[in-house]
């Protein structure tokens, strides 16, 4: 049994970097951008983990097994 995992959850996280001649605006924007990237990447990570756990639960239910805790 397999669940469909969104493609975004399989991609690497993003890292905003400063341009060559950064301004104060670039720094502020990069700060905001990196925060957003953390939240987005954690959401993708959480989705991937929850999908894996859900697949395991489905397999356990299918075979009537009680999987020991990892």
């Amino acid at each position, binding site marked *: *049994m397999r*669940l*469909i995992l*969104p493609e*975004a*959850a*399989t*991609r*690497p*996280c*993003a*890292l*905003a*970097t*400063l*341009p*060559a*001649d*950064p*301004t*104060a*605006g*670039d*720094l*502020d*924007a*990069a*700060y*905001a*951008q990196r*925060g*957003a*990237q953390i*939240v*987005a*990447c954690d*959401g*993708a990570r*959480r*989705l991937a983990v*929850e*999908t894996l756990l*859900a*697949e395991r639960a*489905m397999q356990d*239910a*299918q075979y009537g097994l009680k999987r020991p805790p990892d």
Partner: protein
Amino acid sequence: MSPGSILRALTPWGWLAAGVAALALGVALLGGLGFRWDPLDLQQKRLETTRTQARDAVAVATAQADARRLETEGAAAQAVRVDHYQHRTTAVERATATAVSQARSADDADHPLEHRRADRLHGHDRELCRLAPDLGGCTGAADPAGGGDATLRPGDPAG
């Protein structure tokens, strides 16, 4: 013609035929009365085999139905998770777009960073990209998760 004369007239083949006929008649009569000759209990074994096959078929059908039910429930739960993820991603992008816009329009937005400070930040960017070159925004990275441009302006020094 009396029975005795008939018996005397029979040849050995006639006796054999008569014996076979009598045996067949006896078997037919006993069969009609419900008598069954099954010393090895083959019929019972066949019956048991049929019952086992029927039980197996029911078990397989039940397992397949359970598997389909689990798949349906799993797909529904996964759709909820994906929907939640997409809603959160959209909200994050919206909030970030606002924050970036405000950063760009601030009074000091165009003030260049002091060189030593910029060099220090560039150095850290380069180190992060050296440690994790697959991250979106680093040289050679694939399309990153999380949306948005990783590089905030052209001329990214991260490579």
